[in-house]
């Protein structure tokens, strides 16, 4: 509101990165020069025909990375949206109703929090069929926990606000109060949480795919990385520069994009909420 800050600049930069990536994933068929499953002469160096060369089975690497944007972002958004919705719902219930139900939800949260998330995800993913849906489900199972916890604590604060009590006094039902008075005030937190979760999933998914647990057909950036790494002499020759570096940079760019946006939003959304609520106290 007052002048442009570093955070605003970073936020716009992050938003720019994300918009480009989303556009690339939506228009992948138009942008990519080839179908990523078509095979050409394997292990070609970059040329005007194949800007990033081809891999060991002859797929065009640039097209693979462009289509990989689709897979990576699809997983990130599907997981974070679902996990955030579940987490928010459970957090609202736990925070608002309290009682036995709230207690149970929070104990489940505690149990989940003590489990080393990535290790267990690797174990589960290793035993399930290799598909992007496996990855999505496994990440959702662990993704809702933090959100539920954060939302609950915010609801506990909001619940004691006079305007929530007023709404009850005016004759509003619990559902009405949750929907009209509590949810709108936790949304800023949820948005930030969504961004953090998405960036976490991008990294975790890349890690999982790098270990060879990704979908071999719908190749994400991590999967491309995985196959590149399996290729002998990848590091000793120049091949890594067009086979490993591009998907790696994409991962870094996406995470930075999410982080910058989250960084800017956190400042913007939270203090505003706090100062407005806290005014005159």
């Amino acid at each position, binding site marked *: 509101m007052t002048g442009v800050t570093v955070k605003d600049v970073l936020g716009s930069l992050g938003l720019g990165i994300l918009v480009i990536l989303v556009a690339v994933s939506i228009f992948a068929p138009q942008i990519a020069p080839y179908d990523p499953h078509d095979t050409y002469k394997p292990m070609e160096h970059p040329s005007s025909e194949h800007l990033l060369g081809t891999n060991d089975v002859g797929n065009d690497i640039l097209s693979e990375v462009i289509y990989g944007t689709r897979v990576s972002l699809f997983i990130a958004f599907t997981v974070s949206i679902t996990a955030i919705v579940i987490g928010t719902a459970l957090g609202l219930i736990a925070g608002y109703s309290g009682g036995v139900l709230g207690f149970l939800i929070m104990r489940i949260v505690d149990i989940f929090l003590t489990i080393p998330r990535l290790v267990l995800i690797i174990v589960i993913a290793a035993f399930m069929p290799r598909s992007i849906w496996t990855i999505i489900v496994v990440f959702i199972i662990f993704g809702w926990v933090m959100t539920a916890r954060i939302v609950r604590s915010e609801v506990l604060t909001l619940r004691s606000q*006079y305007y929530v009590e*007023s709404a*009850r006094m*005016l004759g509003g039902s619990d559902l009405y109060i949750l929907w*009209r008075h509590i949810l*709108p*005030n936790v949304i800023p937190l949820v948005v930030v949480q969504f961004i953090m979760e998405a960036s976490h999933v991008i990294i975790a998914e890349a890690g999982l795919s790098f270990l060879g647990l990704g979908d071999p057909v719908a190749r994400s950036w991590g999967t491309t990385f995985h196959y590149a790494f399996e290729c002998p002499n990848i590091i000793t020759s120049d091949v890594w520069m067009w086979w490993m570096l591009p998907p790696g940079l994409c991962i870094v760019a996406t995470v930075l994009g999410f982080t910058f946006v989250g960084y800017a939003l956190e400042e913007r959304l939270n203090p505003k909420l706090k100062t407005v609520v806290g*005014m*005159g106290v």
Partner: protein
Amino acid sequence: MLEVEGLTKQFSSGIIKKRNVSAVDCVSFRIEKGKTLGLVGESGCGKTTIGRLILRLVEPTSGTVVFDGIDLFSLKRAELRKIRPRMQMIFQDPDSSLNPRMKIGTSIAEPMKLHDTVPKDERAQKIMELVETVGLNPEHVNRYPYQLSGGQNQRVVLARILALNPDLIIADEPTSSLDVSVQAQILNLMRDLQKKFNHTYLFISHDLEVVKIMADQIAVMYLGKLVEVGETPDVYNNAKHPYTQALLSSRRILLEGETPGPADIPTGCRFHPRCPQRRDKCAIEEPEPVEVGEGHYVACHLV
């Protein structure tokens, strides 16, 4: 109109070793229609809890509250919600009584929507009417609570309550967070509204000057119990309880020590450790309320 009988609330804490803290202990009073009862006491004595208990925002431990012939504590949730519009509460802090993300107009319209008291097409006009009744400007309707002052927000709260046409209004220190000049405006507004709509008020305050202006009857509370109840002039001119006398003395009769917390309530008369006129009996036996004049009750061994 409102009869409160033996109202008690104990909060318990701890899971294994239960500890009971009694916030309100066997409080009884009644308010006639169109009258104001001023409930006075220092902070933490249970005044606010009484207000919340009457509205059942907090569930009571025991006692009865009869509102216009209806026993409130026997009502089921759905029945309670139906009667809620008739009893409303104004909270201490007007700024947090309104949802910061709702425009003033939306907040005022909220009760109309919830209870469908006003047809949809007449709501906008009704809002304007209410805004005018409480002395706000029509352009305030499109603002947010943080853009208004505390006094203006308290007017919004009043407008919103008026939309429901309530019989009983519990005002919990409605002016304590406002500037003195604004306080007077809000108090005058509340009195005008009472005259106009014949509201019954339970006026909770720690400020005796304010209560003196507002109340027909006064109830003085100390540590969860009423120590003195009576008509305002009787209590002001002829206070019998040492605690009331101390509160009223302009030079402030200096009381010894501090108010004990509700977790460790003294034996006998709750006030005895600080009472300048205590006797041996006071530490052992709890005084019962005695009628000292018409409708003037005092719970003290000295009377």
